[in-house]
């Protein structure tokens, strides 16, 4: 019987975040209009390989995913790896959890490293809203499938006789919840109205996001986190000169259904735009990093995923993090105030403000979370200090893999500390995580 390797580390162990690479994010139908998910993911992976000298190397796993995915991309990550400079023997799989995708892929890689099943891995995510899959109209699809099932020429002709001119109109995927028929913005507008989130407060979040991102670019923060792609060197949604006064002039959209007397407060600036892009994170055991002389930016501590009943319950679509974070804090013996950085995905400025309001609300904390005391507030100067999705844009599945290395690098710069990540996702879900350095 073979004996266990003597150097086997004590398990579980904390996975290290070693580094990252992403391509700049591009507004929809712009710089990346001709690039596919596979193109962007391959480019982001190759940038990572180049940065860490991994050409020809096999990593434990690459796990990635896309929200808007063609059926021919069933093995998207595997195809991207085969076209990248990683060893062709690198295993992969695809995951999709809407906007939570690449925080979840990070968690999956981190857990396998923690259990000693792999020594290194790449978590990634990619999305394109420009090169989106177009589906044929449901009626046309039924006719074509019936024709395909037909066993005789006469059967095929009979099936095709069911074609109607209106069926030629294709269906382009919409940012809409299938069970509610409401767009994400319409859902967010309801939540904003329910919590009384003001236009002013939302615009302050949006302006800060752009200003922080611009400052971070100016000081070179992203130099070792990003590789130029198709002519872009920065996220092209960034408006460095954004001010609350300027944003106040934009026309509001998304009137909240069910609130006839409430004004719309959400605008194109305090809502994330449709964006294209890809992001990757390299995780490893401390030993793997040390053997290669690579840094450890931070460690992945723990994560929690929650879901809410927005379909028939009374909770907002994007409020799952309000439930996930308290569970994560409790399991780790922490309070909301015990963090040096708060990285909250800004799906809509109103979404994170509603989450903060919920944690400050004794009734919510008592009735929904079962706490006698509210979680309370935290120092907002520690929130999204190098900008977030309102400024960078938000290619759905890539956002987690943008945020994880951002926080890891912030913690590494500080030398020590702890950070909280929160991402809300379509389908009433949310993924949250803790990193420490």
């Amino acid at each position: 019987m073979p004996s266990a390797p003597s150097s086997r580390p004590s398990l579980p162990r904390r996975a290290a975040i070693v580094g990252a690479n992403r391509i700049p994010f591009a507004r929809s139908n712009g710089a990346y209009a001709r690039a596919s998910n596979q193109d962007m993911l391959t480019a982001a992976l190759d940038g990572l390989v180049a940065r860490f000298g991994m050409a020809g190397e096999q990593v434990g796993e690459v796990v990635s995913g896309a929200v808007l995915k063609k059926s021919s991309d069933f093995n998207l990550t595997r195809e991207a790896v085969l076209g990248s400079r990683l060893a062709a023997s690198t295993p992969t799989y695809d995951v999709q959890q809407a906007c939570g995708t690449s925080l979840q892929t990070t968690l999956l890689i981190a857990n396998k490293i923690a259990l000693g099943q792999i020594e290194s891995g790449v978590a990634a995510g990619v999305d394109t809203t420009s090169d989106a899959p177009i589906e044929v109209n449901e009626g046309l699809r039924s006719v074509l499938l019936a024709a395909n099932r037909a066993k005789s020429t006469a059967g095929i002709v009979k099936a095709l006789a069911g074609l109607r001119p209106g069926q030629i109109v294709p269906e382009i995927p919409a940012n809409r919840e299938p069970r509610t028929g409401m767009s994400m913005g319409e859902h967010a507008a309801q939540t904003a109205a329910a919590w009384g989130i003001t236009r002013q407060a939302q615009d302050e979040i949006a302006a800060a996001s752009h200003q922080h991102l611009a400052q971070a670019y100016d000081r070179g923060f992203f130099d070792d986190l990003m590789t130029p792609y198709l002519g872009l060197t920065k996220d092209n949604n960034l408006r460095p000169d954004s001010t609350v006064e300027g944003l106040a002039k934009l026309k509001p959209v998304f009137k909240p259904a069910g609130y006839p007397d409430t004004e719309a407060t959400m605008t194109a600036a305090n809502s994330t735009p449709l964006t294209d892009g890809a992001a990757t994170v390299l995780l490893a055991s401390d030993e793997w990093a040390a053997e290669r002389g690579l840094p450890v930016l931070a460690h992945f501590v723990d994560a929690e995923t929650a879901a809410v009943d927005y379909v028939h319950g009374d909770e907002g679509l994007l409020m799952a993090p309000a439930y996930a974070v308290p569970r994560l804090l409790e399991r780790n013996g922490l309070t909301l105030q015990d963090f040096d950085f708060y990285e909250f995905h800004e799906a809509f400025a109103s979404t994170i403000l509603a989450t903060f309001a919920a944690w400050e609300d004794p009734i919510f904390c008592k009735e929904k979370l079962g706490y006698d005391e509210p979680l309370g507030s935290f120092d907002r100067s520690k929130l999204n200090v190098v900008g977030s999705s309102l400024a960078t844009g938000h290619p759905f599945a890539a956002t987690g893999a943008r945020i994880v290395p951002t926080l890891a690098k912030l913690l590494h710069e500080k030398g020590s500390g702890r950070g909280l990540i929160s991402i809300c996702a379509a389908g009433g879900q949310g993924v949250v995580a803790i990193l420490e350095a």
Partner: protein
Amino acid sequence: MTAQPSPAAPHAPVETLDSPPTLGVLYGRALLTARSGGSALPDRRLELVNVRIDGSLVADYDHVCGFSVGGDVPPTYPHMLAFPLQMRLMTDREFPLPAPGMVHLRNIIAQVRPPVVGEPLRVTVHADRLAAHPKGAQVDLVTTVADEDGTTIWDSRSTYFVRGAPAPAGADDAPAAPPEPDPHVGRLPHAIWTVPGDIGRRYAAVSGDVNPIHVNGLAAKAFGMPGTIAHGMWTKARALAALAGRYGPAFTVDVVFKAPVRAPSKAYFHTAAVDGGWDAKLVSPKGRDHLLLTLREG
């Protein structure tokens, strides 16, 4: 002809049909044939025996109404089996109310268990409770679905209204209907429905209910509608599909159809979990009630 006991019409003789009547033919006959318009409900029940639900037709129905293919037979599906019998009764020359332009006002379904695809079922229909309505007259069509053992597994009561029809003599003696459902829901819609413009034709294709008010704009206007309207039973089916997974196999679901749902249109769907079941409402963006629904389990 056989006589079967029925709690609702214990004495009426039963006529067993060999096959379901064809609805298009019935509508045509109703439109073209002079009616003698009797003043009393026919003392008869119609039934079909050895009816077997066809899984592929249920799949078509699922696609149009939003149910999951391969799940339980939808609770509204047995209405598909009963409706041709109802129409056969109502399009007879002697039936006291004219069938064309008839509007579905209310439908109560009590399900003991969902029927199973392929099992032999007995579907029995009779008319009941002819009554005056402030704007015309109304009548109930009662359906029972029994399994091979003769156990009723599903029954329903549909109330149909005819605008301007004179209330026949003796109609006031009809027993009162149970109180209408009174759902209590919050002010926030849980879903915004986009009712497709062709939903009347699509539902007609799976149900056989080719009532002109659902499939033809001009005909709909001729019957006093603003344009083509969605079938009431489609809105009920869609509402139950939206509650999928939230109720068990045995329940009573009572629905009142208020303002017709135009096709195309948008409508707000409100739901609330209540003691023993669900309340739901479908309302127009301007706040007019389309559908009031209560579902109580057990």
